[in-house]
């Protein structure tokens, strides 16, 4: 039962093969027995989950079930959940019981979903390995000596270890796509503004975007059907119709034009990764697609621009954590400045403090033009590269990551080496376009991810392209040994 997709579980519920209460209890038992190995959950919400499952079964009995009624999922612990601890994997919010729900959470609740719990992540979503979590790193189910990626590493590990059929994630520089690639699952970052950011604890507001992490593209379409849509409470939410993302999944790919940016296949790319991605491209050619080289000439500038924009916005966003209104407060502050400084110094971890300081420096008097403004100019060049390329082709493909999952501790002492792991994902956040990572092969027993990029609001196209690959191949069905 635990290897079933959301679509299969929905069918099982509809057929009466099992109830939502039975399904939910089975998952809770499995989490309880197995998650010690993976640390993929920060909080398991068993009691609430069973209440939601019972309500879902009643809805179904009354003949009012929808596509998502009774399906269990996990939420990344960055989404505010009323009455449940929302920690963002930080000591700062270890005691924070959210007084309200994120819009995404409200939408899943309204659709009848069951929340199994809150998943582990890098602290405040800052990281590519999950190692900055206050609750200890989540582990990669393919090799528990390796990282699951980050920041949505707990969500990816939970889905890969079959401790949830699907989970939500958020992606600021690759935080859905990179862990999806490293854990062998499907992860979609939608167009900026497609999914509401209300109640999704802000890291870099102009880049953050929530999305689904699933076993299949079909499941991602089901999730996005629930998540997407305009929200008055998010000032950057886009007023754009939400299609049925499952409607186009079966469209044939004959005539699809794929662009391969030469910058995504650099000389130092792991040969094993390059080979798996090339095999996937050949599969697409067999499905009727044509391939041409394109160029994204400003790719190398994406990481430098990102490491000004994201820390600057983070230093502004995280100024709200002041020890006064919510979150951690230091013991016996002597005055207000001491209260601020010690609450923040003790409440935030090292990587978060590092990024706040980079941002505070970049935004400090006299540096604005050289750093933030410069980065925003480069951002436009990067967007224009994608616009130009997507005038020539329907989708862009390449590796999601330059390497497979690395060892725990391997990159913690060198933040810049860690940042380089996001080389293929980060530019898309700057451009605001959607991208999906799907499993497309393996090297030395570890999954390899294929990234597929499309134009603004082309999520249905990406899901169609990803789904057709999953109809033709079975990489998405591979499971780690022992699971």
């Amino acid at each position, binding site marked *: 039962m635990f290897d079933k997709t959301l679509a299969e579980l929905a069918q099982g519920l509809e057929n009466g093969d099992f109830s939502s209460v039975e399904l939910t209890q089975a998952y809770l038992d499995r989490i309880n027995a197995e998650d010690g190995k993976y640390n993929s959950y920060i909080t398991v919400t068993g009691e609430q989950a069973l209440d939601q499952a019972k309500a879902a079964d009643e809805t179904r009995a009354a003949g009012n079930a929808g596509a998502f009624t009774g399906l269990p999922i996990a939420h990344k612990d960055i989404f505010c959940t009323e009455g449940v601890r929302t920690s963002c994997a930080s000591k700062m919010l270890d*005691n924070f*019981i*959210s*007084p309200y729900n994120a819009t995404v959470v409200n939408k899943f609740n309204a659709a009848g979903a069951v929340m199994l719990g809150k998943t582990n992540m890098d602290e405040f979503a800052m990281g590519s390995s999950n190692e900055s979590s206050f609750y200890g790193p989540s582990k990669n189910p393919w090799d528990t000596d390796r990282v699951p990626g980050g920041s949505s590493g707990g969500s990816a590990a939970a889905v890969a270890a079959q401790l949830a059929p699907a989970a939500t994630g958020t992606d600021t520089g690759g935080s859905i796509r990179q862990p999806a690639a490293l854990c062998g699952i499907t992860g979609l970052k939608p167009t*900026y*503004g497609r999914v509401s950011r209300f109640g999704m604890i802000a890291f870099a507001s*102009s880049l953050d975007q929530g999305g689904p992490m699933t076993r299949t593209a079909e499941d991602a379409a089901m999730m996005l059907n629930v998540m997407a849509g305009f929200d008055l409470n998010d*000032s*950057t939410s*886009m007023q754009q119709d939400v299609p049925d993302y499952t409607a186009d999944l079966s469209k044939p790919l004959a005539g699809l034009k794929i662009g391969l940016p030469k910058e995504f296949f650099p000389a130092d790319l792991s040969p094993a990764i390059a080979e798996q991605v090339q095999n996937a491209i050949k599969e697409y050619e067999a499905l009727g697609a044509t391939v041409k080289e394109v160029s994204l000439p400003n790719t*190398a*500038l994406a*990481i*430098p*621009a990102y*490491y*000004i924009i994201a820390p600057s916005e983070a*230093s502004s966003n995280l*100024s709200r954590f*002041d*020890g*006064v*209104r*919510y*979150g951690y*407060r230091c013991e016996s502050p002597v*005055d*207000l*400045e*001491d209260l601020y*400084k*010690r609450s*923040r*110094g*003790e409440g935030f971890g090292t990587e978060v*403090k*590092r990024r*706040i*300081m*980079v941002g*505070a*420096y970049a935004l*400090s008097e006299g540096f604005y033009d*050289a750093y933030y*403004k*410069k980065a*925003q*100019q*480069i*951002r*436009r*060049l990067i*967007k224009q590269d994608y616009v130009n390329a997507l005038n020539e082709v329907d989708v862009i493909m390449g590796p999601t990551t330059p390497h497979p999952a690395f060892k725990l501790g391997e990159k913690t002492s060198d*933040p*810049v080496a860690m*940042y380089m792991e996001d080389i293929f994902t980060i530019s898309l956040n*700057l*451009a605001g*376009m959607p991208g999906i990572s799907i499993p497309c092969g393996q090297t030395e027993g570890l999954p390899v991810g294929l990234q597929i990029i499309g134009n*603004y609001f082309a999520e249905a196209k990406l899901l169609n392209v990803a789904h057709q690959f999953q109809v033709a191949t079975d990489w998405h069905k591979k499971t780690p040994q022992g699971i």
Partner: protein
Amino acid sequence: MALDRSDVEKIAHLARLQIDEQDIPEYTKNLSSILDLVDQMQAVDTSDVEPMANALDAVQRLRADVVTEENNRDKLQSVAPAVENGLFQVPKVIE
């Protein structure tokens, strides 16, 4: 761009972050290497490029200036470290 100890102390103060004395060398080293990384931007001429804040050039929506939220102060203050009579408590600011 190499920072020194006093730069890091100044930045930490601007960000209202208490940094342990023994961690300052490590922060100095790491922040300097991050600034070296971002300085790659300076090699590009962007004098004719309009800065981009939003990929879709969306602008802030406005709404009518009317009350839309009900008072839920008690609920929101339930997560505060220290509250008295509906007010957040902080150390004495004015003598």
